[in-house]
């Protein structure tokens, strides 16, 4: 393990150096090798969380922080950078406590290692679910602080003074009599000390970096073509590969005629897999052309007849049944019987594709004694496992070199494309870079599930609900991803928000009815279960307010008296959006609020009705209380981008299935907001002393319901099914 660990680190360091413009000289090589401490700070943090780790750290690598002889600090990020700015955030956390500048830090990707890099919120090593800041906040600062304490102790012992008389600043320890020693000079001594028993972290008032806008570390390379994504890598001896999988999920290859494909200049091999045919060639164009030239006879399998209409019917049917009870307070059945009024509404959300601009890509090299994967992945451990199971190699022989990702939005929480790359690489004796065409990417995604939510409220004389019954029908991502549901039969992702709506309800009963559209593989999409839940709850509460003839913001506040943090966000939103100001006829505001990913977010859409169904978005205001902010620039950017990402989907996007085949193949059929259509997003980040919350998906989750509620306000039309284009709306 030790040797392999070393090899892997060296390799990823080379990768880093290759892609880095910073001249670090030869010092780094020597600097890298001496471990910072026999047990690293991060190891201690992980050990505290996960129990004893035994002598695992005899090899001496710090999990999160390593200080070199040249004083440079390597921060090993357990989270991959895919645009959310997490590398910079993590670097800030370490730099804050270690007392170094951001420019002294080099970011490295963590290798798969469940002991070291398991995200305790997700319970595995992954980047997703808006957990990155929430999870790293404690252990990464602690790692920085521990390292600083050991370095100060080392300096104090050199100067024969008390540690308390010394101070760490800008990568040096300063002594009481004007002495100064750089961290690099102290590393060897510091590494001999045991870890301190108590580590005190700075109070927020003392932060000098955290909370201030920082230039992202990864962006300079992203404006001049230097940034390397998986699709850009070039490994010696590598050929390009691309694949065509059966257009129907679950189908297989019956036979292939490849004469025309092989005649295309540059084509090397045709590799037939169970469900796909791949071509390898000296260039991507030859691969794409050869794939078109293949004559493939498919066995479409059991899903050949399935179509969107049928999936919809089954989901609606399922929503009329009771399912597994995911939450229950009070007695909603009784309340519904005795209520002054009952109100029912059914909401439907479509299958969605992730369609990141970098299509699925993976570089794989399979050899007899090991396998290298250069791939941007949100799940390095799962990537390692799939490669091990295909090749028969042990997980330790699978080296994952994680890469910046050209947009993921959840897509690279799956590893189907990694599996395919390894399958192809196993059949040839050279490394391959798998690059899917856009068409392959869009038609072989792992889609956001389609859901039907049926909500039935018991309404009192005052127009407020005693409670509601909420039935959720849809496929289970958890069951597919984890190979089964928990013992209680509830997909805990699918019932998010529904089981704990922010509103005070005496009675609540949530049913989960698993209805699996076998034809469509489903997975997490930006916003995950929260997105589904917020849409249903926030549309429903808006309808109840409207039925009661009460202002929807006032109505919500009345039901939120037990949640002052949410009320505060709503009040702030009212101010920021001029909620109470009257609007002319044909113009309306819609609102949504939620406590999501540890943050409180509230959004207003103000729009004008143009003609019969034209929507012109006049204002988009969002207020976020995401607790203590690490990098305000990144918070704003995530809220802006996440909101517009959700807006594209709510307006335009739906994946449809006919004859078992996905109908949308490229961006002309799965369209995105473009420059002239994208409203500016006014983001207000509330000052907050709460623990950090997630922001990567928060904007995405809130915009859908805010938009349809605004459509109702402006057009008087209650749309319950997304996307809005399905009901004839278009953007002006």
């Amino acid at each position, binding site marked *: 393990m030790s040797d392999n660990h070393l090899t892997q680190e060296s390799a990823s360091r080379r990768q880093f150096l290759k892609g880095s413009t910073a001249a670090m000289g030869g010092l780094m090589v020597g600097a890298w090798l001496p471990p910072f401490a026999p047990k690293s700070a991060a190891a201690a943090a992980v050990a505290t969380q996960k129990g004893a780790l035994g002598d695992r750290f005899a090899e001496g690598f710090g999990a999160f922080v390593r200080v070199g002889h040249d004083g440079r600090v390597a921060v090993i990020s357990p989270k991959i950078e*895919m*645009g*959310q*700015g997490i590398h910079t955030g993590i670097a800030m956390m370490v730099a804050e406590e270690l007392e170094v500048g951001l420019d002294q830090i080099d970011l490295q990707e963590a290798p798969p290692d469940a002991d070291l890099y398991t995200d305790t919120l997700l319970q595995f090593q992954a980047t997703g679910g808006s957990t990155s800041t929430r999870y790293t906040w404690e252990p990464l600062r602690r790692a920085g602080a521990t390292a600083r304490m050991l370095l100060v102790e080392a300096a104090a012992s050199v100067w024969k003074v008390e540690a308390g008389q010394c101070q760490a600043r800008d990568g040096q320890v300063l002594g009481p009599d004007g002495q100064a020693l750089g961290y690099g000079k102290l590393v060897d001594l510091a590494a001999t000390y045991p870890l301190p028993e108590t580590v005190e972290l700075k109070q927020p008032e003392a932060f000098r970096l955290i909370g201030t806008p920082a*230039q*992202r570390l*990864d*962006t300079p*390379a*992203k*404006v*001049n*073509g*230097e*940034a*390397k*994504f998986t*699709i*850009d890598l*070039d490994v010696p001896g590598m050929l*390009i590969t691309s694949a065509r999988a059966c257009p129907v999920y679950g189908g297989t290859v019956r036979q292939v005629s490849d004469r025309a494909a092989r005649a295309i*200049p540059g084509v090397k091999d045709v590799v037939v897999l169970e469900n796909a045919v791949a071509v390898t060639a*000296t*260039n*991507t*164009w030859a691969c794409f052309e050869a794939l078109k030239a293949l004559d493939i006879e498919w066995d479409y399998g059991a899903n050949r007849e399935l179509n969107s209409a049928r999936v919809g019917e089954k989901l609606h049917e399922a929503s009329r049944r009771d399912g597994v009870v995911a939450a229950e307070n009070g007695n909603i059945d009784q309340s519904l019987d005795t209520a002054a009024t009952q109100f029912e509404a059914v909401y439907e959300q479509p299958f969605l594709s992730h*369609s*990141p*601009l*970098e*299509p699925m890509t993976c570089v794989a090299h399979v050899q007899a004694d090991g396998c290298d994967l250069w791939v941007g992945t949100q799940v390095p451990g799962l990537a390692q496992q799939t490669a091990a199971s295909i090749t028969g190699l042990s997980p330790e022989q699978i080296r994952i070199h994680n890469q*910046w*990702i*050209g*947009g*993921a939005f959840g897509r690279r929480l799956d590893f189907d494309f990694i599996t395919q790359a390894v399958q192809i690489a196993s059949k040839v004796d050279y490394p391959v870079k798998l*690059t899917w065409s*856009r*068409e392959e990417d869009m038609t072989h995604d792992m889609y956001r599930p389609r859901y039907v939510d049926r909500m039935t409220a018991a309404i009192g004389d005052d127009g407020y609900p005693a409670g509601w019954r909420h039935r959720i029908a849809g496929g289970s991502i958890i069951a597919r991803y984890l190979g089964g549901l928990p013992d209680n039969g509830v997909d805990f992702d699918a019932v998010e928000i529904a089981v704990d709506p922010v509103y005070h309800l005496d009675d609540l009963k949530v049913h989960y009815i698993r209805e699996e559209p076998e034809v469509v593989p489903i997975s997490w999409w930006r916003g995950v279960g929260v997105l589904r839940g917020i849409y249903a709850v926030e549309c429903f509460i808006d309808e109840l307010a409207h039925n009661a003839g009460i202002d929807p913001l006032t109505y919500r506040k009345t039901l939120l008296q037990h949640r002052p943090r949410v009320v505060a966000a709503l009040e702030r939103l009212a101010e920021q959006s001029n909620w109470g100001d009257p609007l002319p006829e044909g113009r309306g505001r819609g609102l949504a609020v939620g406590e999501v990913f540890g943050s409180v977010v509230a959004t207003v859409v103000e729009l004008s009705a143009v003609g019969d169904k034209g929507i012109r978005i006049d204002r988009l205001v969002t207020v976020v209380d995401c607790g203590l902010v690490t990098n305000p620039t990144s918070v704003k*950017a*995530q809220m*802006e*981008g*996440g*909101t*517009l*990402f959700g*807006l*594209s989907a709510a307006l335009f996007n739906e994946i449809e299935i006919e004859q078992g085949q996905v109908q949308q193949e*490229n*961006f*002309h059929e799965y369209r*995105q*907001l*473009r*420059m*002239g259509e*994208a409203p*500016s*997003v006014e983001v207000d980040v509330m000052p907050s002393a709460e623990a950090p919350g997630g922001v990567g998906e928060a904007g995405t989750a809130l915009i859908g319901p805010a938009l349809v509620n605004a459509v109702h306000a402006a057009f008087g039309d209650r749309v319950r099914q997304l996307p809005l284009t399905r009901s004839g709306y278009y953007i002006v």
Partner: protein
Amino acid sequence: MQTVKVNNQTHVVDVPGDMPLLWVLRDILKLTGTKFGCGIAQCGACTVHMDGQPIRSCVLPVGDVSGREITTIEAIGEQPLAQKVQRAWLDHEVAQCGYCQSGQIMSAVALLANNNRIDDHAIDQAMAGNICRCATYTRIRSAIQDVSESVGVWQP
């Protein structure tokens, strides 16, 4: 054999004339700053300049570019105006994943270089062919506005 002049260097490449310029740049000349996104001129990730005009290299056969000057993101920073654009991109912290930004910058530089008056509508038009899935549009607009103002072509 095809002859292409890219970033002031002439290359003779042994590829069929119908190979899109994008793949010549990326796979043959190893200029990977220009990205593949859709292959059908829908997303703009592959935008480069041909004689100073923005074109989608994913649909332009390499056989059609002989005698033309191609400029890619790797060399655009040699132009002072483009440097301003790149700087503005950093000042406004535009990039998120960054994958589309080469194409966005190439479109923006062409807009700025080829117009004496730039307003919001001009930005909408010039940038309409570039998709950003991270949806950084607001910041792209601000960055372009900033440069437009600094070079005196902004028309509010």
